[in-house]
């Protein structure tokens, strides 16, 4: 029993690392642009299909393929921002962007159906099926590799945000857009780059998701609801909160699965409701998510 529990916790933490990466992308986009990118889930699936094409057509290893899919997803993000988000202004902006990003999700889903069909596929590699035996557990290599890559990227994102000039301009824009403009930050450029970065990380999430789950073009909706729950729990716009909430939620889900697999997803959302009842701003959220 205890062994099973520990195993579940380790599983949850490893998966949580990858979810953290996707959630950080979503929360960054929210923090800077004040929008919820509903398309984030479908973009993860798009990332998974890109990995799928690279591995089945060009026989490129899944991890090597990230060197291609990450920049490609970055460009897709910048293009989505340029084409759909940039123009939205005014008081209805936040609710408009919900609709617009939902439309983007539908468009991408439609394209995926057209190109790949509706059948489930899964990413295959030697390490998606083989496991390593440590401390008496069998852990699939993909979980360990995925976790390591996710942690490296989260650290890289952190360094980008807290140690570079670009990062400083991103944080400044998150805290007070007008003040940022008044010190000469070009907030539209910052927004486009942030959107690109937030989408680029879905390449990694997609690869990991696709290697551990069967997926089809419709799989993005379950993902986006989980990611939304995570960033709300973490406190909208809070990067540290997104990390903590990812690991917490996925571990919880994994532990509950031991007893009642069917309850796992319900507990996931019940935990969200419970935490918000006690602390309406989430783990690390402040009273106002951002300055007005």
């Amino acid at each position, binding site marked *: 029993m205890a062994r099973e529990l520990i195993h579940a916790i380790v599983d949850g933490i490893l998966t949580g690392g990858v979810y953290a990466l996707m959630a950080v992308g979503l929360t960054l986009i929210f923090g800077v642009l004040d929008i919820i990118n509903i398309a984030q889930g479908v973009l993860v699936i798009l990332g998974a299909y890109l990995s799928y094409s690279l591995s089945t057509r060009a026989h490129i290893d899944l991890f090597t393929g990230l060197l291609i899919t990450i920049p490609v997803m970055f460009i897709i993000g910048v293009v989505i921002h340029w084409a759909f988000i940039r123009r939205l202004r*005014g008081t209805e902006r936040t609710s408009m962007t919900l609709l617009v990003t939902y439309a983007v999700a539908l468009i991408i889903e439609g394209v995926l159906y057209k190109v790949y069909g509706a059948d489930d596929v899964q990413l295959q590699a030697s390490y998606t099926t083989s496991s390593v035996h440590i401390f008496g557990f069998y852990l699939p290599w993909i979980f360990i590799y995925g976790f390591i890559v996710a942690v490296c990227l989260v650290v890289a994102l952190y360094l980008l945000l807290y140690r570079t*000039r670009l990062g400083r301009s991103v944080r400044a824009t998150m*805290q*007070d857009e*007008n*003040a940022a*403009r*008044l010190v000469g930050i070009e907030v539209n450029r910052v927004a486009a780059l942030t959107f690109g970065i937030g989408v680029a990380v879905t390449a990694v999430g997609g690869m990991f998701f696709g290697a551990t789950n069967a997926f089809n073009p419709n799989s993005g909706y379950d993902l986006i609801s989980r990611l939304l729950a995570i960033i709300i729990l973490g406190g909208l716009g809070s990067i540290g909160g997104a990390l903590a909430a990812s690991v917490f939620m996925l571990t919880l889900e994994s532990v509950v699965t031991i007893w009642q697999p069917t309850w796992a997803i319900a507990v996931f959302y019940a935990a969200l409701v419970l935490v918000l009842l006690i602390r309406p701003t989430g783990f690390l959220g402040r009273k106002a998510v951002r300055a007005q």
Partner: protein
Amino acid sequence: MSEAALALDGVVAGYGGGDVLRGVTFEVPANQITCVVGPNGAGKSTLMKAISGLLKPRLGTVTLNGEKLIGKSPRQILKLGVVQVPQNHSLFKDMTVRENIDLGGYILSDRAQVAKRIDAVFDLFPQVRDWAGQRAGELSGGQQRLVEFARALMLDPALILLDEPSMGLSPLVLRSVLDAARQMNANGATILLVEQNARAGLKLSHRGVVMENGVVRLTGTGTEVLNHPEIGELYLGGAVKNGAQPG
């Protein structure tokens, strides 16, 4: 009267609804303090935004030493030496005071120059140096204002736009904030000041501009405006008519 640094001519601007500024015309002389007063909603802040580039006027011209500002981005206007301290507190509250000051030099690419400017600004505002490591959001309202002033000086601007810098401050702190404005002017900057406390603002200023309902109602020297009978009654509560003011 010295040469005009900034000239506005027939500026019309708004937020998409109706026009808020309905043809604003006046000049801001170089190396002086010009104070804009007027009732709430007159369009004073809108005017400041129209100059700094946050808001694009629909009609009219704004020129800085002859160069047109309208159509330029806030960044381009900043590069020409115009910096705005807005009405609402504008520090990045989760960053330290030092990071905030540093961001005042965001458009400078030369790090050595930024470091030099930070030292110069700390010399002008020694208290700010003491707060350098604190999170900006932890400072009091008056302290935040001084940090905003310090940040505005990072680019050694030619023209500083101060929008109600004393808002929400106690009379004592108000004095120190206005003293800081005076000091910035003494160091060579031209200042356009919006001040809710019209009496204190006008006494400090060389020129006064009275705005009402999106147009300029009256201009003159600070004392002229302060002593104008009608204006005294309208905006200064009447008490100023005889001109004699304590403190």
